[in-house]
């Protein structure tokens, strides 16, 4: 982060100066985020189709709410970023969007989440079918201990998309820019790939079955800057065809890739001293970083957050 870019100056200054320097640096960082966000062509929201609609969504683990009363819309072919401090429930909320939380004993989703108007948690809805349309990429790359080809073909075989299998695998690998790197060793183990390649393979695996939405939970957090850059570029390309929701701890990353950004925080003043995650602000990315409406958002994006 640029807040610590010039330690020498801060060190040599007296207390008063130090404060003002810190201010400057903070403003700088905010300006950087704003610049990054503003560089993106602003995307009109009004005429976008809503893919996922969250209405008063609360997710609790064994009775205590990890994230509370979230209402927001996720727009078609947008990149939507979730940012916020650790433990505020970003992962929890993300996993409720494709019913991965069903797998956690004691996890309960209240409120409604609709996908193109269909209630995802309706009694008649098959979570398997939900996950087929709303794919997920995890924080740690998790390729199967199979060949590169079999990893990408995994979902295709499950869903009977076995016609043109080779073609589909190739196209998924092309989309993630992995094709040239692996085309000569499709039959060798996916575990021999580098971390960044593995993560792109996992993205390819998710894309192969042609989901409409791809959920990504800090997909680049385990990767070096170059691999991260590739993932970000990839997200930029993918949004022409997919709706993407990405959790990130890296505000620059949100500013670079996201059309809309949701800032979450932990509400400690809640009753019974509980710690609940809450949605503080949800806005077009440039607005959120340049003109945050909520003081908590401002504190966070300017780096004054604890």
């Amino acid at each position, binding site marked *: 982060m640029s807040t610590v870019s010039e330690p020498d100056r801060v060190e040599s200054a007296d207390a008063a100066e130090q404060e003002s320097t810190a201010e400057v640096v903070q403003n700088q960082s905010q300006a950087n985020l704003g610049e990054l966000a503003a560089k993106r062509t602003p995307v009109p929201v009004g005429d976008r189709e809503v893919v996922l609609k969250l209405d008063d969504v609360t997710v609790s683990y064994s009775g205590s709410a990890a994230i509370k009363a979230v209402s927001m819309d996720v727009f078609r072919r947008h990149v939507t970023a979730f940012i916020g401090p650790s433990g505020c429930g970003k992962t929890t909320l993300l996993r409720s969007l494709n019913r991965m939380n069903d797998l956690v004993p004691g996890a309960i989703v209240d409120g409604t989440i609709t996908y193109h108007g269909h209630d995802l948690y309706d009694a008649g809805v098959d979570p398997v079918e939900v996950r*087929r349309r709303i794919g997920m990429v995890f924080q740690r790359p998790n390729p199967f201990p199979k060949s590169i080809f079999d990893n990408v073909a995994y979902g295709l075989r*499950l869903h009977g998309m076995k016609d043109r299998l080779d073609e589909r695998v190739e196209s998924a690998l092309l989309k993630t820019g992995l094709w040239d790197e692996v085309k000569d060793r499709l039959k060798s183990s996916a575990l021999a790939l580098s971390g960044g390649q593995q993560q792109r393979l996992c993205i390819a695996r998710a894309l192969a079955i042609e989901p409409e939405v791809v959920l990504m939970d800090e997909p680049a957090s385990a990767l070096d800057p170059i691999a991260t850059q590739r993932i970000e570029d990839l997200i930029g390309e993918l949004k022409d065809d997919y709706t993407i929701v990405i959790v990130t701890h890296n505000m620059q990353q949100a500013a670079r890739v996201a059309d809309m950004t949701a800032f979450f925080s932990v509400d400690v003043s809640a009753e019974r001293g509980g710690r609940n995650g809450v949605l503080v602000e949800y806005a077009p990315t440039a607005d959120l970083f340049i003109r945050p409406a909520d003081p908590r958002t401002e504190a966070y994006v300017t780096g004054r957050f604890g």
Partner: protein
Amino acid sequence: MIAETPAPASTFRRRRPRFGDAGLRVLAGVAAIGSLLLVALLTYKVVDEAWPSIAQFGLSFLWSEDWNAVTGEFGARDLIWGTAFSSLVAVAIAAPVAIAIGLFLSELAPRRLRAPVGALVELLAAIPSVVLGLWGIIVLGPFLQQHIEPRLGDWLGFIPLFSGSPSNVGLLPAAIVLTIMIIPIVASISRELFLSVPGDLKQGSLALGSTRWEMVRNVAIPQVSAGLVAAVILGLARALGEAIAVSQVIGGGLNFSASVFQPADTLAGRIASQYQGSTSNLQTASLAYLAVILLAMSLIANITAQLIVRRIRQRMGGAH
């Protein structure tokens, strides 16, 4: 902060003596050599003991059916048959059942059932085989004789295996007792194996829209297949070597019958029942010869298992 002069060579010298490392290496070495030595000594002793019989009968011991202490004619054919049949049938039934139990208890059962039923299976694995044999005598044998064997005979009597009159002892109860004995062992290992499958992989599969069963079949089972093979072979080894429970229900007959309803015997059963009362040196040596055969069978099972495990690991491409 960076040192101006290059660090002296002594920087990377070992600072602390590594007694722990050296100690561990010595300990592991002693244990490895010790166990090898033990097996070698044991084998030598058994072969030595069996030598008079090996010298007299040679390999024909393997396919001779005589076992007559009076005339001094000994052969292992019927016992090899009894051992192979009872163990293989037991493993063939127990392996799929036990793996299914392990899978059920780790992946499919309602969560609050998993721990208690899992503990119950561990408990079953701890039942002494002699108790199981007793149950075989009191309950299983009579039940088979009265209800199962007559029916099997009616339907399948044209097959020699199921011909003959029902009795309360024989190969059938022996195979069933062995099956019951090895199911909990294999099931509890399978359960542990399935629990060891990384959650990342399971979630990766489910997130691609697989059902739980598809996840189990495509990710969990391949991931632990090497371990499952090892578990099944462990079960087979237990079945091959089990003497007590088998001799309680198999009848120990000296006459060969192709029927599984009739009394028979196994290598381990014969050794256990006759060694004390052996009347001649040749009989004692022949019993030791049976032990040599049993040892060889176990060894073959074990080596086969290791070969399969290695093949699986290679196919998984360094997944372990």
